[in-house]
């Protein structure tokens, strides 16, 4: 034992069971500070590998800096600075501090710290959000290209770390903003995810159609409860979505066959809760089979008229509501008691 300490009882003389119990009550920054007090504690903590029990982690990648949050207040920022990396953070006296790491790539530095954060994470994270590519309103073309390179470097290096973990990182909600689906594929195969949100970060091609083929072949795809894909169109088959409970997707066009397929799935499968699909079409209501009774029309102050068709389902006391408003069609399971008076059930 290298640290000097008094012969009387102190933290360093406590049995492992006591140390483990105390560590179990500390958050990640506190454990890191304790680790720095002396080599005895450093060795102990490195051996025990306490779970930082991170609840959430948000990472923002920009063309010349990256920063992340893992609780309300802690957010180190890493800037490209010539051939080095400037790290900005706040001391416990709330004073900003800055340190220049010469000849260090800022992406390598931030990844080192993020890896430190995630290495011992064993518990399920509530949320992991990575804004890997988001172009601001005004951005030079070369900056956009640089941002893409930085985000690729960041994601592929983070992928290496996640792939090296013996167990997939468990995350309830994984939210990622990217330039293309391939960037999602860097990380998703190494995560155990329930809810997935993908946002197209390129502002210039909101009408791009994502090629999701590789994504839907992942084992993670089948395990998803919720899927949300924003700012781009998808070309997914309805049958590829029917394991989900909830989803929000944009299709360039939808047709009557898709609506019928989804309607039948909702009528026979009790796990389906809510599917919200947007389209460029403004006349979706004409896609509904005219033989169905309805629609029940409800006026909403924000979105205007909402046309709803009601259907019985296989589960007693429940119904399916198909609502159409503006460019959206929404499939929702509900309880009988919420069917409005005067509405007809198909």
């Amino acid at each position, binding site marked *: 034992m*290298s*640290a*000097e*300490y*008094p012969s*009387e*009882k*102190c*933290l*360093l*003389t*406590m*049995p492992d*069971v*006591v140390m483990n*119990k*105390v560590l*179990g*009550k*500390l*958050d990640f*920054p*506190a454990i*890191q*500070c*304790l*680790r*720095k*007090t*002396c*080599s005895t*504690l*450093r060795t102990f903590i490195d051996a025990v590998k306490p*779970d930082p*029990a991170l*609840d959430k982690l948000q990472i*923002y990648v920009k063309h010349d800096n990256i*920063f992340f*949050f893992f609780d309300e*207040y*802690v*957010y*180190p*920022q890493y800037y490209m600075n010539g051939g080095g990396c400037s790290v900005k*953070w*706040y*001391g*416990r006296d*709330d004073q*900003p*501090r800055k*340190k220049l*790491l010469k000849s260090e790539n800022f992406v390598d*530095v931030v990844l*080192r*710290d993020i890896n*430190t*954060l995630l290495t011992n994470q064993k*518990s399920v994270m509530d949320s992991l959000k990575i*804004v890997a590519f988001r172009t601001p309103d005004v951005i030079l073309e070369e900056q956009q290209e640089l941002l893409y390179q930085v985000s690729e470097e960041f994601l592929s290096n983070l992928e290496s770390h996640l792939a090296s973990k013996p167990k997939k990182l468990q995350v309830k909600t994984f939210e990622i903003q990217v330039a293309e689906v391939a960037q999602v594929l860097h990380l998703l195969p190494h995560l155990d995810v329930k809810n997935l949100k993908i946002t197209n970060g390129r502002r210039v091609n909101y009408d791009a159609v994502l090629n999701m083929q590789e994504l839907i072949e992942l084992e993670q795809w089948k395990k998803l409860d919720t899927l949300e894909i924003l700012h781009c169109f998808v070309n997914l088959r309805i049958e590829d979505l029917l394991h989900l409970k909830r989803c929000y997707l944009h299709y360039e066009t939808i047709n009557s066959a898709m609506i019928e397929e989804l309607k039948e799935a909702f009528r026979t499968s009790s796990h389906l809760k809510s599917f919200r699909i947007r389209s460029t079409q403004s006349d979706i209501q004409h896609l509904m089979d005219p033989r169905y009774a309805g629609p029940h029309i409800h006026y909403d102050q924000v979105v205007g008229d909402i046309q709803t068709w009601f259907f019985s389902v296989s589960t007693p006391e429940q119904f399916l509501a198909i609502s159409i408003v503006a460019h959206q069609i929404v499939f929702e399971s509900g309880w009988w008691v919420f069917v409005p008076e005067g509405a007809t059930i198909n």
Partner: protein
Amino acid sequence: MSCEEPTTSPTPENNITVVSSDGKEFLLDLKLTEQSETLARLISNFEYDRTDVKKDPVPLGNITSAQMQKIIEWLQHHRYYPKWEQNDIHYSTSFTFETWVEEYLNIPNNEMFELLNAANYLNIPRLFSTICRIMASRITGKSAEQIRTVLNIKTDVKNDVYTGIPIQEDSSSSEDGMSEISLSPSPPPI
């Protein structure tokens, strides 16, 4: 949570005698020993809860009379509390304590650690967990240097001139982790 102070005194039928490491005897009500898993198991094994069984004094070689006195004070206070339920899986535990506990544990660090050892030895989970929470509350939010001061830890590594954190000659920045990242008033614009 509050509880009533005990009103009954131990009688030969409902107590056992424990002997501290310095030879002092303490008469303990069997009701109080239920909070100590070690004593409860011993009483069950030797059937000391039966009135027709002769009860030999129980030696507690690891616990001094001063510590035993302190522990009995804890047991008395928590006599009517419900059985302890372990539910703090993660660190997200409360660092607020009832006033009685704060006063009870307003003792020097070395005494606190001795009491912690005693609570561990006697397996009194509520006391053990409470002291661990107190220790954690004294660590949380402090820098490495402040923790050293509070817990009287002397380090064998030299400090970084700028951050005040210890540096080991053979350690890289990655090994140093992120210890000095800390609280700040407001997040940067996203």
